[in-house]
């Protein structure tokens, strides 16, 4: 945590960059018609806080981002166990270079806040505070539209950690299913199941995922020209193999991370946007990976034993 604070302290002296300057309403309080309104109420509140701290000077905006990342690290620490596993998991989440875009770039604030809400939700699951879970899941949607994944991710965590019975899981589906559906329908104007787009995005996700192991080639402007049908097929094959293994070893850490990443990235795969996947979209998936690495041991059962 201290090392993370030390490394990111430098960003306090950095300028606003790129899309930080795209939204005068959030940065300088000028009204524009694209202002997201209550869609990102939590994000708006955090940007207002930044403005109260340093007005239009970037240091306050960076300070809030770094603080949010450190808070997320502290919340993650509450969820994981084991001395060295915790070091590895926290190191992965806090210090991996894939996270730089999320923390050093003010425009990625929604992803940080989504992470905070999600972690609060997971802690609520751990302590059986279902009201707090609903609150955290609601706040996640107010941080970023894709915060809709907070509910299924918390349910996944509850199931993986044996925190709920099958009956309670069914009730969760009955209660939260319609809520998730209603929120998802709000995005119906941008939802478009385009198989070609989804295929490309999955390939990008695998490519970015590979950078977890080999963190090179990080940039704001990825050249995806190398994605050919053959490459896409290979990536799909890798995903299929991982998915099959996850099904067989249903309660393994691999299965948790697979399901987590699939749920976390789902909104990006069905919402065609010009720019597609970027490093900051991996903030929540990396959180799942860190949980998979550092979560307390859960008795592993195969699919057949579960059945």
């Amino acid at each position: 945590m201290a090392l993370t604070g030390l490394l990111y302290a430098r960003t306090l002296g950095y300028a606003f960059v790129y899309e930080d300057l795209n939204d005068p309403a959030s940065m300088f309080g000028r009204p524009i018609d694209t202002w997201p309104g209550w869609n990102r109420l939590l994000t708006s509140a955090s940007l207002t806080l930044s403005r109260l701290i340093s007005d239009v000077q970037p240091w306050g905006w960076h300070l809030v981002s770094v603080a949010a990342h450190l808070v997320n690290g502290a919340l993650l620490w509450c969820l994981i166990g084991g001395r060295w596993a915790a070091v590895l998991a926290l190191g992965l989440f806090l210090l991996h270079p894939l996270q730089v875009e999320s923390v050093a770039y003010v425009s990625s604030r929604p992803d940080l806040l989504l992470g905070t809400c999600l972690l609060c939700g997971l802690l609520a699951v751990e302590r059986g505070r279902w009201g707090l879970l609903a609150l955290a899941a609601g706040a996640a949607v107010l941080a970023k539209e894709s915060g809709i994944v907070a509910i299924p991710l918390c349910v996944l965590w509850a199931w993986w950690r044996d925190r709920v019975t099958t009956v309670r899981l069914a009730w969760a589906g009955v209660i939260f299913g319609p809520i998730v559906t209603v929120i998802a329908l709000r995005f119906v104007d941008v939802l478009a199941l385009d198989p070609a787009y989804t295929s490309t995005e999955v390939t990008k996700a695998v490519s970015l995922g590979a950078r977890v192991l080999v963190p090179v080639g990080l940039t704001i402007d990825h050249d995806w020209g190398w994605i050919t049908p053959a490459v896409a097929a290979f990536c799909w094959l890798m995903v299929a193999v991982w998915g099959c293994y996850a099904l067989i070893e249903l309660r393994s850490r691999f299965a948790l991370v697979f399901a987590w990443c699939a749920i976390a990235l789902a909104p990006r795969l069905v919402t065609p946007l010009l720019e597609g996947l970027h490093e900051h979209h991996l903030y929540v998936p990396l959180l799942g990976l860190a949980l998979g690495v550092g979560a307390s041991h859960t008795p592993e059962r195969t699919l057949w034993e579960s059945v």
Partner: protein
Amino acid sequence: MKVLGLGLVLVWALLTSIQIETWASNRTLWTHAARTSPRLARPAINLAASFAEDPQAAALWLHIAITRLPTSPRQAESAVAIRGQLRLLTAFGSPACLHPDVRPYC
């Protein structure tokens, strides 16, 4: 295992330290983008930065972007970005808005 874990964390910290420098300013960001993805045009859409470097090229790019901007949802993000940048240029009285190719859009 301990050595491997600590080693990984230290390597990540070192790479993060290098990567953080990339986000110091638009100049470092665009330099990095141009080095890592020279074929791509995304850096050009930051008008606020590119006008300072090359007003003529930036105005030309904006003209192309505006006139060919499709209305499909896939382009929505780009459209919002361009509109936001134009508002910024207008709000701050940027000389970019005095450029004959840009003035109609400000």
